[in-house]
């Protein structure tokens, strides 16, 4: 029993120390900002990335994109800004950065369908909350008056109808979020787009860093992606999705 308690104490102290070493997302954000201000972009990238790994935040990803851009990593910068907009689509600064980067690097923005455009109006995860709350509000307004022995009032029906309407209207946005989750960006300069998923495969074309593409499927170390003009396989390390799997 003593040995068990001793082991438990050691484990707890170890976890505590590693947590202290890692720092909180806010501390890392401040470290990154300080490094950025003295033009230590490599240090800033490291701090911002650690902070975003612990807790993805729109401001952290915005700043990470700036640091990546200053280091000449257009693909990583565009990905970070797109991720920032995924969390906070109202940030005009991040939108401006994307326009700027795409103009400078002569890149296109992803071609979005109408329901994907709808899904960009609000943060992606808000749609899930909106759908849940509106649907269950409608259900509650239909069921609760009867259960509570209250006569059904006009406002009950109005709230139920409103809830159902909001829920139905949010469905296209859900589909948009789902399909946008498969959009990604080329991370390395001159990434070969291959005909087949092998190292020796014929290159159809070369993709610039930051070029958007949609993930179709995966095979081993290769991803089948569809760009605005062509389709082919790229290496897994050369492509990153907005919605990275955590």
């Amino acid at each position, binding site marked *: 029993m003593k040995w068990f308690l001793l082991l438990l104490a050691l484990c707890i102290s170890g976890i505590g120390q590693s947590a202290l070493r890692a720092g909180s997302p806010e501390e890392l954000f401040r470290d990154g900002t300080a490094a950025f201000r003295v033009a230590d972009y490599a240090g800033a990238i490291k701090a911002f990335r650690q902070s975003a790994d612990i807790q993805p935040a*729109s401001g952290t990803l915005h700043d990470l994109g700036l640091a990546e851009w200053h280091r000449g990593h257009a693909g990583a910068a565009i990905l970070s800004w797109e991720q920032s907009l995924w969390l906070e689509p109202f940030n005009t600064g991040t939108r*401006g950065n994307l326009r700027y980067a795409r103009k400078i690097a002569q890149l296109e923005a992803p071609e979005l369908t109408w329901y994907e455009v709808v899904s960009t109006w609000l943060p992606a995860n808000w749609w899930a909350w909106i759908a849940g709350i509106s649907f269950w509000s409608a259900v509650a307004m239909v069921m609760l008056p009867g*259960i509570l022995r209250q006569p059904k009032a006009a406002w009950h029906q109005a709230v139920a109808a409103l809830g159902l309407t909001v829920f139905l209207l949010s469905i296209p946005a859900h589909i948009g979020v789902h399909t946008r989750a498969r959009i990604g960006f080329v991370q390395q300069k001159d990434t070969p787009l291959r005909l087949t998923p092998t190292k020796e495969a014929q290159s159809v074309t070369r993709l610039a860093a930051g070029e958007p593409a949609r993930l179709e499927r995966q095979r081993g170390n290769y991803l089948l992606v569809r760009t605005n003009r062509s389709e082919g396989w790229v290496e897994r390390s050369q492509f990153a999705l907005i919605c990275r799997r955590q």
Partner: protein
Amino acid sequence: MSLMLSQPKVDITTNVTAVASFDPPIVGPGEQTIYRVTFNALEETIDWPRKLNAPDELQMEPGAHGQIIPMLGPIQVPYTTFNTRVRASATGDFTVPEFKVQAYGHEVTVPSAQLKVVSTPPSTSPILHLAIEFAETNLFVGQPTRVRAILPGSAGVFSQGLPPVQFTGQGILVDQAASSQMVTVTSHDGMNMPTYTFQTVLTPLEAGNLSVFAQCFTGNRFAGSLVITGPAMIPAPPPPFTLLESSPVSLTVRPLPKEGELPGFTGGIGTFKLEPAKLGTNELVVGEPVKLAVSTFQYTLVPLTDEIHETPAIPFSYFDPVRGAYVDLTIPSVPVTVHAGEIPADFSTLVKTNGAFADENEPVLSGLAASPGWTGTLLPLQTSPLFPIVQLIPAGAFLGLWTWDRRRRYYEQHPDVLLRKRARRALHREWRAMRRAARDKDAARFAGSAVSAMRVACAPHYPAEPRALVGSDIVKVLGSNGQSDTVRRFFTVSDASHFAGTSTDTSGLLALQPELEKVLQQLESRL
């Protein structure tokens, strides 16, 4: 949807089989042969091993692989082929043994294949041997070169979606738009035969030694007559399509030199000639566009001031791979006379980009964010496995409320059911108390619990308050077959203890427990 349904189906239900063979089956030591395995399955579903089990004398190297999905009757049948380049170091008969691979998640047996290595192999026919020819093999990065794949014979080349012939290798770019194919009659070893030629332009994108080979699917390669003079066993026919590959060709690719690079170099490599620049007119008016044509390029120039007397020189240079140097081919100035005029509104943006005014809509890089901002998850909530589980909470709550409400309404309409249910519950409670008292040999408590149990069990039949019932009420419920004496005995003892205040003889009550149990069972069955 109807268009989708009208598409022929791809056959993925037929049992997958594999055919393995060497091509050619007889070679000399050191000569290359192809170990070819073909499946009637989609390539992506086949888990092809990285290393094959083969005799030590056979040096094996992965070759081409690909799939073709031809229409065979009403359906499309997939064929996937994996080639392995094999060279034998000694003469003899060698066998690549049978092995198993996964296709569509099931095990498929690849049969064994035999290779005979002899010191004097029969000469091979050039028919249907794919060859590759480069215009040049010493190149600079970005220098396009013509490449031809040549296939003697008349079997034809098959492809679906992909180019008929693929050039495979790392660090190359194939220009599909520049490809062409033709069939000509050519002479091979003194034989005239139709020859398929596929030609395209290939550009190396990396420096170093690049290995490139061509691959294509062709029809069945059986050719010529077959004479059988005695008993013979004819094996299963080979797959109808064969994946051919050429021997790899090595390209030596050098990087472009950094020194000597000239202004206006945009990646042009080759030999360029510049014809004299032709201006639409030499008499210009401010704001009016004029065309400047140079070879196949055409520029539109708009004079913005009447103070200029010649068009600006347009820098252009290219890299000449033959000379190994950059060549200046700047488009020279052309003298013009510009008359005064007004700049149209359409060209005002041109003026702005020239630096006269700053564009307010021009995107600029923003500053740092002051705080981490909104937090969240980059994985959509909808795809999280917790999301449906969280939705089950309100669903369960509403289902529970609905069930409770239904039961409540039922009991309101059938109060007797509720009474009986409560009576059953009270009876069990008193019954347990009675048994505890019997175990403790406490006859008075035993009698009290027994009477209470009988009362609560009979109350719904009247209906009445249980405490208001007397022994005769219980006997009436039990009917003529009931243990009336037992019931009366217990009520007498209970009444005496409650109302008379005298001690009564309870010594024999505990012995009546079996009879009392029967009474209570009868009462419970009537609830």
